[in-house]
């Protein structure tokens, strides 16, 4: 059976409470980072960062349906930016839900899914769909 491999380490977790994205927050200025700021707060240069989980629900900031291929995705595929607090917006593949056409500002929900296959492995990442 194909092994499931996350697209990158330390981007998301999933347990009984469902999937969440992993980011971090600066203890001084409060800015949130996704992916995690690696060594210092890149906003205010403070050294203390705390890990946070977020991203289960966000608002659709903008979207498109790509009709040309990208490295890993065959067209047509919907994708967009989902907006969270602290002006953090995250690019993601989107999934259509019947009867809920994409609209800027609509509430979106996180789920984990296979993004593509590579070397016999399933590459797993995050996606969003309308609530």
């Amino acid at each position, binding site marked *: 059976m194909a092994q499931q491999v996350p*697209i*990158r380490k330390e981007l998301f977790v999933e347990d009984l409470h469902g999937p969440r994205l992993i980011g971090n927050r600066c203890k001084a200025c409060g*800015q*949130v980072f996704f*992916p995690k700021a690696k060594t210092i707060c*890149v*906003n205010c240069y403070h050294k203390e960062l705390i890990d946070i989980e977020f991203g289960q629900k966000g608002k659709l*900031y*903008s*979207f*498109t*349906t*790509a*009709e*040309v*291929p*990208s*490295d*890993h*995705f065959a067209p047509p*595929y919907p*994708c*967009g*930016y989902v907006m969270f607090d*602290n*002006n*953090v*917006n995250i*690019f*993601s*593949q989107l999934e259509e839900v019947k009867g809920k056409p994409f609209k*800027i500002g609509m509430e979106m929900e996180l789920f984990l899914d296979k*993004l593509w296959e590579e070397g016999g492995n399933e590459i797993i*990442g995050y996606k969003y769909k309308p609530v």
Partner: protein
Amino acid sequence: MTNFGKKAETKLSDINTNPSDTVTGTPKYQLSALATDQLTLGEVIGQLVWIKRRQIMREVAVIGIGQTKFGRFPEIRAEQLAQEAVGAALKDSGIPAKDIQVAYTARSRQASTDSQIILKSFGIVDREMINVQNACAGGSTAVHCLWKDIAYGIYDLGIAIGVEDMNYPKDHPISQQQGKALSGSGAGAAEDLEATMGRTMPALFAMIARRQMDVYGATREDFAQVAVKSHRHACLNPYSQFQKELTLEEVLSSRMISDPITLYQCCPVSDGAAAVILCSMDIARQYSSRPVRILGSALLSGDYSFRAEDMTILDVNIKTAEKAYKMAGVDPKDLDVVEMHDAFAPEEIMHYEELGLCKRGEGAALLRSGATALGGRVPVNPSGGLISLGHPLSASGVRVVVDIARQLRGQAGNMQVPNAKMGLAQMQGGAVTGLRAAACGIQILAI
């Protein structure tokens, strides 16, 4: 802190320290000559460094311009394209090739030894040569670096070259890789998270366009109108890849690339090269009685997107423009002609606002007014722009300077903006997760 303040005070006689502020632990200093508000010591030093730099800086002139026709030339390699542009620029300048003291060459695909390869056939060797990449702003970067060298007196005369060969014969090994390289993810895509997740360049600008529609009421017709204008202009440009007018209907009904962007709203895959020869003003006057002057040149990398107000505006363009305007001591209203990055049509409307050609949110209205078409108040991309003239990536940042210089000299033929005295050349480059646009270069030219 106090020592630092006193040290500065003895050096800068017009700085007055305010002791009461020092007591509260937030020392503030006022520079009576400059300040309208309270400035920090750092800001005062910044202002003084700026003034000092302005005293040191020499005026730089564009003395030679050259470019190839842009188009699909799968049989012609970058070296050959660049040599054609360099030859044209040398001929235009009238200077002997041996006088070139320094060279910068930009190329997105490969930049390892391009200057050396291109220039050795002109007898230009054994000099400082630098090969640069900065996505689509690579050409702007080459021009900016050369400008710095001359402005600050390191060299007196040099050449900036931009070249890209993007179309290869079918059986060429690069053609096999090209499908991936040109899927629109941009250079360095393999490491960039958003690009890996499918954020191609057309998708990015489509998402920007969608917000322009949502926030400011821009329409699909507005975006298509940019392409109609560009194609109309390109018909007047002997160097352009496309020389065919398109109707609004043709643009709107062309194949969808990334909703709402259709095929004719996207730049083509182009081959081409451009070169400019810059020199100090005293040398320029020996060759021309009215040399084109570079009043300001600026290059900046993108800031974090969490600091950006909205996606419909790219901060890096605003900040680079402000820097260039300040250096030039001019206002957007002074511009007679603009050449800018319009890889995808909706961008042009956004850049009007970033460069200050109109107020925020009024880009679509400016387009509709006709002000940015040839014959209007401030024609934008009379060359046809990236959409219609073509976009050999790293060549474009040099080409916009060539086009503006040509306009100011009054040598732009059918695409001439009558009586153009001042123009701005802008080129934006790349997209990086968390930063959005990676770079922007701007030069302001005048005659």
